C-alpha cells in the first residue's frame, strides 16, 4: 500500500520499474505459512482472531493468511477476514491526493477480538497509524497485531510489526512492489509531470 501511495504522490509520480526479485511466489507462500503458525502460537489457537487486510496490497495477503490458518488449525474452524481502507483517517489529506481505493468491509463487531492487521509493505508506519484509528470505529479489540510481508524500515512513528515475511533494507527513494508472482525491489521512474 505504501508503494501505491508513493506512486501518486507528487513529485514522485511515475511507474514502478523492477530491478531485483527479492521473493518469488513460493517464498511468499512459505512466509504466509510461517506467519500463520506464529499467529496460532502467539494466540494459543484462533479463538476471537480476526484478519483484516489493508486496501489494496494487504487484502490478497490477508485472504491467503486466513485460508492458511483455517487449513492448519483444521476442525472446520472459520477465521473472519475483512478489508479496511484508511483514506479517511490519513494524516496527509490535503497534502497529496487521497482517495479511497475500495470500500471497507468489516462484517463483525471487533469488540473483544484479536485483530491481525495485514499489509504488504511496512514503511513509514503512517498507514498503520491511520488503520489503528479506523479500527476503533468498529469496536474495541482486545488486541491488535500487525503482519507484513516486507518490513523495509524508515519508520516515522513508534510502530513495529508482530509478524514479518522478510526484512528488506532499502534506501528511502527505492520502491517495493508486492504482487501475485512475488516481491520486487526497484525504483519509481518519472514518466510524467507532477500533478497540477
Amino acid at each position, binding site marked *: 500500500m505504501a508503494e501505491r501511495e508513493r506512486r501518486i504522490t*507528487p513529485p514522485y509520480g511515475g511507474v514502478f520499474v523492477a530491478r531485483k526479485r527479492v521473493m518469488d511466489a513460493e517464498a511468499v507462500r512459505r512466509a504466509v505459512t510461517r506467519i500463520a503458525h506464529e499467529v496460532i502460537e502467539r494466540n494459543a489457537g484462533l479463538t476471537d482472531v480476526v484478519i483484516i487486510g489493508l486496501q489494496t496490497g494487504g487484502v490478497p495477503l490477508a485472504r491467503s493468511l486466513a485460508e492458511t490458518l483455517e487449513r492448519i488449525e483444521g476442525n472446520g474452524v472459520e477465521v473472519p477476514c475483512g478489508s479496511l481502507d484508511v*483514506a*479517511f483517517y490519513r494524516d496527509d489529506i*490535503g*497534502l497529496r491526493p*487521497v482517495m479511497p481505493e475500495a*470500500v471497507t468491509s468489516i462484517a463483525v463487531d471487533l469488540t473483544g477480538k484479536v485483530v491481525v492487521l495485514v499489509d504488504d509493505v511496512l514503511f513509514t508506519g503512517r498507514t498503520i497509524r491511520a488503520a489503528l484509528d479506523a479500527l476503533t*470505529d*468498529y469496536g474495541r479489540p482486545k488486541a491488535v497485531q500487525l503482519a507484513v510481508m516486507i518490513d523495509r524500515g524508515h519508520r516515522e512513528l513508534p510502530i513495529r510489526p508482530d509478524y514479518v515475511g522478510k526484512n528488506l533494507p532499502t534506501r528511502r527513494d527505492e520502491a517495493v512492489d508486492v504482487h501475485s508472482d512475488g516481491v520486487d525491489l526497484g525504483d519509481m521512474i518519472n514518466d510524467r509531470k507532477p500533478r497540477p
Partner: protein
Amino acid sequence: MKHLLSIAELGRDGLEELLDLTDSMIEVAERRIPKVPALRGKTVVSLFYEDSTRTRLSFETAAKRLSADTMNFSVSTSSVKKGESLRDTVLTIEAMGVDAIVVRHPSAGVPWQIASWVDASVINAGDGWHEHPTQALLDSYTIRERLGSLTDRHIAIVGDIKHSRVARSDVFAFTALGAHVTLVAPPTLLPPSLEGWPVAVSHDLDSVLKTVDVVYLLRMQKERQSEALLPSLREYTAQYGLTRERARLLGEDTLVMHPGPMNRGVEIAAEVADLPRAVITRQVANGVAVRSAVLFKLLSEPDGGSDA
C-alpha cells in the same frame, strides 16, 4: 476539482468518480459510529437564499460525518434584510475563515459569481431554474444502487421540466452515464427550446410508462396554475400524475423516484409513494452520502484544489 457548480462541467469521469466515492460514504453511514476524521478543521457554511429543509440538513449531516464544522447563514434572520449586497455577505462569511460555501439562490449563475469572489470551494445547491448538481448525483447513485448501472436504461422525467433545476441536472447526469431520457410534460411546462438536450419528448404518459426502468416525478408547484400554465391541478393529475391505475402499467422492477417534497395526490398518488418500488426515502439517505463524497472530493485536494 475546486468547485461543484454544474453537472455539465463534471462529465462522465467526474460523475463516476463521485459515485464510486459515495460507496465508501455509504459504508461509513452504516457503521456503529458513522463518523470519520477526514475533514477535521474544515468549515462548511450553508448560504441559502431560498427555503429548504432537506438539502440544508443533508449537507450539514454530510459535513458532520466527515468531522467538518458547519455554520448556517439564514437569509431571513440576517443583515441581508438590512440591505447587504450578496458580495458583501459572501466576503464577510469568507473573512470568518470558511473552506466551502454551499449556496442556494433564486437566480441562475449566482454560484459562479460567488466562486469568482472567494478562495473557498463553492457548491451549487440550486440556482434558479438552472442546476442542482447534488440532487442529480444522488438520483444517479440511487438508480445505480438499485439497477446496477444507468447504461441503456430508459428513464422518464415527468412534470414541470421548464421550471425545474432538478430536471436539467438529471438529464445531463443520466444521459452522461449512458441512460436514455424521455421528458413527459404538457407543452406549456417544457422549456421553449430543447436544443442540445439529448432527450425524447412525449405527451402521453401511459405509453411511456410501459417501457421505462425509472419514472421520475417532479414536484408540481401550485403557482403554475395561477400562472395559467395549467388548466387545473386535477386535470394535470388526470393526464400526468402517477395514479394507482397508472402504477399498474409499470414493469416489475421499475423504480419510482421523486426529489421531494411530494404533493401526494397531485403528481403521485399517496399509495404509490409508499410502494416498495418507490425509492424516495432511499434517495434522501443517499443524498447525505453523495454530499459527503462531494465535500471530501473538494476539500481534500492539495492546496484546496486548483481551478482546473
